[in-house]
């Protein structure tokens, strides 16, 4: 379970162009389910996802992970509860690497290198044996039907293929939580439905899925267990407050 308590995020604090993306959001995200953040662009969905995914720190508020993170990161009381917001950067990165898999709206693949290397990248600093990382990467690429592009540079792929590579990359460290930001933005209807099916398969594997989207195919999908509506940085409907 991911718990957010009065989380706010402002950019350029104190300056003339101060901008508050997320305002006092309190939310509880259930484990093992697909939660969709719905709202127009500018509603703070992406920012909220980056906060949950340990890529930025909130300006105020707390984010707590319960019973999801690996035991090695268990809090001092051993209950498996970690407050992300108070962790030093080093541990934050460790959690980011092992617990979360992030699929960006822009894919954010590293250009100029091969598909395979892109998928293996998140595992590089862990010191895991090359052979096993490679095998897992190939399996994932095969799973998403892009195995044949393994040695090709990522720049050559189509939108749909690139997205599947991005998904494979997000899964290389077998994360417990998968976060996807506007995953269907560059996909046609058929591929969008396919994506939701893939999300469903993650759920079946016991992962927690968090998707931000303003695409009806996503938030109206029967696979979506909970829909949280956001507007202007606040939660307007849905999502059980802790």
């Amino acid at each position, binding site marked *: 379970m991911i718990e957010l308590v009065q989380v706010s995020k402002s950019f350029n604090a104190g300056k003339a162009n101060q901008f508050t993306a997320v305002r006092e959001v309190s939310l509880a995200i259930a484990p093992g389910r697909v939660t969709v953040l719905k709202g127009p662009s500018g509603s703070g969905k992406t920012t909220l996802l*980056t906060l949950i*995914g340990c*890529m*930025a*720190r909130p300006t105020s508020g707390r984010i707590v992970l319960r019973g999801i993170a690996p035991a090695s990161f268990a809090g001092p009381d051993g209950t498996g509860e970690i407050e992300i917001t108070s962790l030093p*950067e*080093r541990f934050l*990165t*460790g959690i*980011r*690497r*092992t617990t979360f898999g*992030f699929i*960006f709206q822009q894919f*954010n*693949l*590293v*250009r*100029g*290198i*091969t598909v395979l*290397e892109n998928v*293996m*990248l*998140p*595992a*590089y*600093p*862990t*010191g*895991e*044996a*090359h052979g096993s990382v490679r095998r897992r990467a190939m399996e994932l690429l095969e799973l998403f039907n892009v195995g044949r592009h393994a040695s090709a540079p990522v720049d050559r792929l189509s939108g749909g293929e690139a997205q599947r590579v991005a998904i494979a*990359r997000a899964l290389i*460290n077998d994360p417990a939580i998968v976060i996807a930001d506007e995953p269907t933005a560059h996909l046609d209807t058929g591929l969008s439905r396919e994506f939701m099916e893939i999300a469903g398969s993650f759920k079946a594997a016991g992962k927690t899925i968090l998707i931000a989207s303003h695409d009806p195919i996503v938030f109206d999908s029967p696979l979506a267990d909970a829909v949280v509506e956001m507007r202007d940085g606040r939660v307007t409907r849905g999502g059980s407050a802790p």
Partner: protein
Amino acid sequence: MNRTIERHRHIIDFALSSLLRRKGKNLSLLAVYVLIVFMIGSVMFFIQALKREAALILQGAPDMVVQRLVAGRQDLIPVGYGDKIGAIRGVSGVRPRLWGYYYDPAVGANYTLMAADGDRQAPGTAVIGSGVAATRRLAQGDFLTLRDYSGEPVLLEVAGIMPYASDLVAADLIVMAESDLRALFNLPGGSATDLAVAVRNPRELATIAAKIARQFPDTRPILKSEILRTYDSIFDWRGGMVVVLLAVAVLSFVIFAWDKATGLSAEERKEIGILKSIGWETGDVLLLKFWEGTVISLSAFLAGVILAYGHLFFFSAPLFEHALKGWAVIYPRFRLTPAIDAYQLAVLFVLTVVPYTVATIIPSWQAATVDPDAAMRS
């Protein structure tokens, strides 16, 4: 341990993939880098080897050489001085040296003419260095023609040619009988070019030199230590061409590192953001930059040093021959003995590898510590 090695290897994998994205640029950078290390290394090793060789060869030089100065310029010294100097306590022997320079306009070469001791060389004959033999195309038994002070030709039979192995001291030498030399240059009897003084106790050299200078104020004694020090300082770091060469090399280096040192492009910054967002720590990113710099600088250093060594000690430094030869016609053939020490290599390493690696890491430092979200937005 394995995990650490694997982590480094993975990061090197990515560093190389990253560098290979701009293959042309990085390969030419590497090539120039190797060239710079090669140049600096060659000069450093060459100087060191030459200094060492000079010190070893000139071990047998005279303990002291006494010259005479007239009106501030070197002039002939009376042999009589030598008799008196020989009487000074501590002096074990004085031998007059009779030698001079001869300019051969036909080939534009300078020769050094020396008188042999006593009867060692028969009048009308000469032993010549291999450089003279080559320039004048002489073989043993041929006749060497010189012109004396009045322009009259003098013929000397070549009694022998000194071996190539002695070139470094004798390439331009012509050793002849004393009488022939005096006749050639019209040198009055009882005079010598300078005096070679042998001393029993080397520690008394300075005292004896002072005594000589006092007794003969028109003389200038030159000690063996000064002779050796001449060659020590001859290619000194501070001297002439070497400084210019090094300054140019270091400057061109700075230009190459400039590309890295003036900060990261937006694309590089974004890429670091991506790496951090997929779980790379700041330390991992910095390690990546370190390896990116080290892959190039270490390879260039090793290749440059290996090439410099080969150039100097297997091919006898053909590239330097030109610089050393200048306008000279006679240039000695010699094989240098390698004389590289750890200090030299350390200096070379610090001059070449460290600046480049540092210039690759430092600009990335700030970007590496920024939140991934902020990095990707910028």
